[in-house]
């Protein structure tokens, strides 16, 4: 009985998020219909420009469910992009080995952070804060200049358009133009689904929820809390590097200031999507909608034209505040019931 109610509460948060997204999108269609907001491509662009963020937000959700946090992701993305650009352009390494190497570095990064969090019991926030500055600094050590990627293999990945069989519109010349997406979107969504399945149906996934719900009980239940946490951070490091790779497919360049504030966007997306920061509760699909809401706000600001980019930050922060307060109200109501 209690469980059903709890589920309802969390489902409710997710419902609000989805509703918010739908309402925002409808508002966008109404306000900007003359500027082409109704096109399918506008929606697909949301996915295209946020493919990296979807992966990062997914892995952030996973970490948040354990009751931890990872604020190093933005810097890891920057480091990944810089490493990819540097290896391919300055060292002449092929695209495939470069990507594999970068993903390996992500795993090592996650391993170190995970060890410090799980085995040394240092607050995740402090560990990843150090990780954030380390990765950003390393990016600057590799190169302080912007490196553009000209590697042909890489560019061919980045520019491979996949046309949709539907939703086309007739352009001025009378040719039907179908909306397109890039492979990065497909990969991001596949990862999202895989993580969803992992969290929902595997032993590993269930233990992540158990640890986040109550670490002490999880330990008493016989779960290997330390190892599970370590695995989560390793996977998170891998996904951060992978998100960085997808991000790089979009930008095709590496520079120090890249993806600054990415971690906050990822956390905000997860929170807006109904993930509880205290751990134990979360849904990666909620985070997807969190990312989409953020993307919609950006699209609004783009379409509007006169608003400055800092409005994105303020709106996201306001949404974050709203959802955090909502969560806290729910938590208090639950406590009272007990």
């Amino acid at each position, binding site marked *: 009985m209690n469980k059903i109610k709890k589920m309802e509460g969390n489902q409710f948060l997710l419902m609000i998020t989805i509703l918010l997204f739908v309402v925002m999108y409808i508002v966008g269609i109404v306000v900007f219909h003359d500027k082409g907001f109704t096109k399918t491509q506008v929606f697909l662009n949301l996915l295209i420009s946020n493919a990296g963020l979807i992966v990062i937000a997914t892995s952030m959700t996973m970490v948040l469910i354990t009751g931890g*946090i990872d604020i190093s992701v933005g810097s890891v993305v920057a480091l990944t992009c810089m490493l990819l650009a540097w290896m391919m352009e300055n060292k002449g390494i092929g695209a495939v080995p470069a990507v594999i190497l970068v993903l390996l570095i992500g795993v090592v990064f996650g391993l170190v952070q995970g060890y410090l969090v799980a085995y*040394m019991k*240092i607050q995740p926030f402090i560990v990843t804060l*150090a990780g954030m500055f*380390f990765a950003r*600094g390393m990016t600057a050590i590799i190169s302080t200049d912007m490196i553009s990627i000209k590697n042909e293999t890489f560019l061919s990945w980045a520019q491979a358009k996949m046309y949709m069989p539907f939703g086309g519109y007739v352009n001025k010349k009378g040719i039907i133009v179908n909306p397109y997406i890039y492979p990065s979107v497909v990969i991001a969504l596949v990862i999202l689904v895989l993580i969803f399945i992992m969290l929902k149906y595997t032993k590993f996934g269930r233990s992540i929820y158990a640890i986040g719900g109550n670490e002490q009980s999880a330990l008493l239940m016989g779960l290997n809390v330390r190892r599970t946490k370590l695995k989560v951070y390793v996977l998170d490091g891998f996904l951060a590097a992978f998100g960085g790779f997808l991000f790089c497919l979009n930008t095709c360049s590496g520079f120090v200031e890249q993806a600054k504030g990415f971690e906050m966007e990822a956390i*905000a997306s997860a929170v807006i999507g109904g993930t509880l*920061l205290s751990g134990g509760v979360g849904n990666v699909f909620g985070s997807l909608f969190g990312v989409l809401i953020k993307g919609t706000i950006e699209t609004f600001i783009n379409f509007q034209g006169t608003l400055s980019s800092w409005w994105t930050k303020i709106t996201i922060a306001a949404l974050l505040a709203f959802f955090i307060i909502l969560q806290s109200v729910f938590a208090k109501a639950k406590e009272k019931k007990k």
Partner: protein
Amino acid sequence: MSKSKSMIKKVTGFRLFLPLACLFLVLIINVIKTPSFFNITIQNGVLYGYIIDVINRGSELVIFAVGMTLVVAASGGTDISVGAVSALAGAVCCFVLSGGEQSTDFYHAPYLLGIIAAILIGMICGAWNGFLVAKLRIQPMVATLILFTAGRGIAQLITDGQMIYLRVDHFKMLGASIPGVPLPTPVFVAIIVVILTYILLKKTAIGLYIETVGCNSKAARLVGLNSTMIQFLTYTFCGICSGIAGLIITSRVYSIDANNAGLNLELDAILAVALGGNSLGGGKFSLLGSVIGAYTIQALTTTLYAMSISADQIPVYKAIVVVIIVTLQSPEFQKMRKALVAKISSGKTVKEAA
């Protein structure tokens, strides 16, 4: 033998041992690297030198660290919005004094009004954080994340995305020096903030209350302390400190750049608190430790600059230092060390018995 051992134990067990040891280490490295490190010269009646520079530049950090120490002690969490709040406070101050103009040579409003506005806005930001943390029971890091994200945005909204210049000699004094006084003004501001806070904590019971709440907020409530109020007040106080620091930062460059004012200082402040021997989990704290920690960080930064490491790369070294310090502090490491010591000493007793 055992006497010297206990002596070592006493010395290393001293609360300020770690921060002082780190400070000395950094200073010694500096002296070896640049023998002129401790030289102080007088130019135009103002003291110059590396060491003065460290003390001067460290002022904002000390002020941040004071606020952060109380927040960490009372709630076991950190306020990551301090840098953004200081930028916001600086923006408000400049906006008030310049009357909305982008560049000005005279005050459009009384100087005091600008100062009060900045401190007030810091206080409001702190109160908002405190409300979220203490009243709504939101994790401190996440609650302050809101202002961390929005603070600079709001600051840019106030300055209209431009830099505001205040080319008034009087305005520069807070960040530089007052004519006739050999030491830079920020040093005095930092000292005043530290002393006032120290008196407040030691002469009243507030310090004890904060420690109690930090150790166990539920137990503190059961003995009749208003935990919520105390946590709320520490965040508000931290906001005030950010406001004051924001004023100094603004005055140093007699302008406000909402994007870069106080950037990354939140990490330095947290680092200073950790380096000061304070547990980041809350509870007992040492204000003096944090102050020493802040100067150590500043000395480290200055050293790295002196070794011609660019500002972008400095975070790498700082990050390594943080990881080492927090690992040394962590209870798991202490356990491992104790187990190792016990193993060695038990091995010895076995040998002696044989």
